[in-house]
């Protein structure tokens, strides 16, 4: 099933990139969220994909019951999900402000910071 997930990751990645390139500020956020999903899944797949083997410790032995899923990538992804949400929330509010203040949704017109001379 790793192969299936690999295809899924590629598909999400392609959609994300296409949306980021669309120059629309809303599509940009959605694209970035898709990108985050693809990345989280990528880390997850590289870790381990076992069915029904959550990394929980047996209370009696104090050890894992045989082979369990790798807990480290899961911890990393958990952090990534939460931080991703923080960033997304901020971006959403920011974009809403941009829309209300100047009413522009085309990222190519939001270029005053990169203009010089």
């Amino acid at each position, binding site marked *: 099933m790793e192969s299936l997930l690999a295809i899924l990751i*590629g598909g999400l990645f392609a959609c994300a*990139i296409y949306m980021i390139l669309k120059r629309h500020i809303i599509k940009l956020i959605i694209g970035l969220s*898709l990108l985050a999903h693809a990345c989280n899944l990528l880390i997850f797949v590289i870790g381990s994909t076992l069915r029904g083997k959550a990394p929980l410790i047996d209370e009696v032995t104090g050890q894992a019951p045989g082979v369990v899923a790798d807990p480290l990538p899961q911890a990393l992804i958990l952090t990534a999900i939460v931080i991703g949400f923080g960033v997304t929330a901020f971006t959403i509010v920011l974009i809403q402000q941009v*829309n209300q203040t100047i009413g522009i949704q085309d990222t190519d017109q939001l270029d005053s910071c990169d203009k010089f001379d």
Partner: protein
Amino acid sequence: MLTLILTGFLAAIAAPFIHKLTPRFSGVILCLYPILFFAWLLGFIPNVSAGESVLLENQWFPAMGVNLNFLVDGLSLTFALIISGIGAIIVFYASGYLKGHRKLPRFYGYLLFFMTSMLGVVLSDNIFTLFIFWEMTSISSYLLIGFNHETEKSRYAALQALLVTGGGGLAMLAGLLLLSHIGGTTSLSELMNQSALIGSHGLYLPVMIMILLGAFTKSAQWPFHFWLPNAMEAPTPVSAYLHSATMVKAGVFLIARLTPVMGGPEIWHNTLALFGGITMVMGAAMAIGQHDLKRILAYTTVSALGIMVFLLGLGGKYAVTAAITFLLVHSLYKGGLFLVAGAIDHETGTRDIRILGGLRKFLPMITIGALLAALSYAGIPPLLGFIAKELIYETSIQLPLNPAFLTIVAVTTNMLLVATAIMVGVRPFFGKHKETPKHPHPAPVTLWIGPVLLGLLGVVFGLYPGLVSDGLIAPGVMAVAQTTSAKLTLWHGFNFVLLLSLITLVGGILIFLLTGFVRSHISTFNKIAAVGPEAWYQLLLKGLIRFATLQTRFFQNGRLRSYFFYILAVFLGLTIYTILRTKVFDMIAMDLTDVYFYELLIVIIMLASAYLSVISKSVLGAVAALGMVGFGVALLFAFYSAPDLALTQFSIETLTVILLVLVVYRFPKLENYLSTRLRVKDAIVSVLAGATLTIVTLIVLQSPPESKISDYFLENSYALAHGRNVVNVILVDFRALDTMGEITVLALAVMGVYVLLKFRARKKEENNQ
């Protein structure tokens, strides 16, 4: 040594505060540092005159061969004594020259920073520390030239000096690195043992060119000389110290220091003699055409630096003795004359020799200092300058090749220098007094003590050359040329050299008398110079700025699409190249046999949702589709043994969708900004990127990672942290600090959101009013 150097930098930082504490005595207090250094250096004279060279070792970064080792031999000791001795005089002089100046505290800081860096340059034994100190002198020179940064000329001159010497410094760094690569060591004293290997190495020529670029730019050799006259925008104590007595001699020092390392091949000597020769004649000739005291002195300094490089190029016992003696003499008299020029400027308000005259009645002590310096400068016995000039002539008449031609060149240069000596050191003090912008008053002791002291040293060393010859010059010659030095005596008897000296003097006086005529001809010469190296510099600078503008406009064009394309192109290019090159393609195995039906279904729904969010024309539709993908991800987490992730993903996805819907439902229908052609192009790129990532994932999956960290967590989760859920234990226990960081990020995001909403609320209020 290290302590003393570090004290210098500390003193530079402390200087402004010391000045604030006691503005009246700060100059005297800060003088103590160079005096202390000077006294400490004097302690090395017995060792050095006995032929030893002292290596003071401080390990700093031995693995990289970067050590703070200091080498005290005849050469570095001579330089270091000049730097600290004249440094003390300059600090004291500055306290009078810039008395009450708003930025005097800062000036002290810069000056001490420079002094310490310069001492570092000459005392370093390691090429890396040499380079660092070298660049620090360039930076302090930049700060000091631009001291009066309110004027545009100052800023221009400062930047020019920095770019020219900094550019040369970079070339020098490359040269030094190559040199250490060839020699297998970063220590200068060890490199000296490798001279045969270095001289015959295939990379010798590039190394030489790059190192000499550094030396020539620093020491203002033709065609890089132009920055030095412009650097006269600096306050006069700076010109006296950096731009005549010490910093500009760093290039000469480097050449002298590397002569035992690189001085084998003919080309080293020929290059030095050629560029030094051109510089010495050109500098002296250009000096005659000037009428600003400091500019005259600047061009003669260029000429003097040319003489030193020329002499080092000739090499051998006489030439090197002459070079080192001349180095000392020049620092004494040129430093003195600059201080005189500063005092004249300070008292009369002008530096134009055409209106200066008869100052001897008003500035008696300055006149004494000026005359002593001018006599040494013109090479008149019994001053040390005379001895130096005799040595130069003795060198040139004994040359194996073209002695006649080179003697004529040397005599001509010296004639011109004698004329300028009269222009600067004699002319302003005699004749009729003309009214100047300020009426001159006798200069305070701070201003005259320096020139008089330097002038007297010229006399004392001239009468008793033994004072410097055994302790400094002979060991210096030994360090550079590995021979005993030529004897320093005032009187060689009636011989050809004395005749040359007489001719020089008479010729110099004649040129001075004809300066009016010469100047009118020189002005055409100056016009030729206008299309010379400085014009090339300006052209190069303009070209550089234009290129920078163009490339910035191209890359930083304000379009997110372009930026994203650059990132994607690099990612795809490197990844695809690696995949093709390593031929890992064959390793990939697609295996879909163990897929459960519901898993397949979820994946298909997710892909369809993602596609839907791409093509959707309504904002809500796209957001809803994104939510579908997110919940799909959560389900996958749940299927594959990650219940915590699934829980988090569910709640976060819900929150995200709610937030998006709340915010974006007011957005108009999604517009399309791209033409069909661009969309097709984007689609191709996206699909290519997606396919690449799939392949990368498949390749990575071929070699499952073996993580010892995970095993550790599994084993110790219950034993050490008393938690059964390993993922949770990692987050709150093993990697608690990471989680702290995560919480901080969230807090920041919350604050950001709050501020943005607050901002909107206030805007609304304003609009309502």
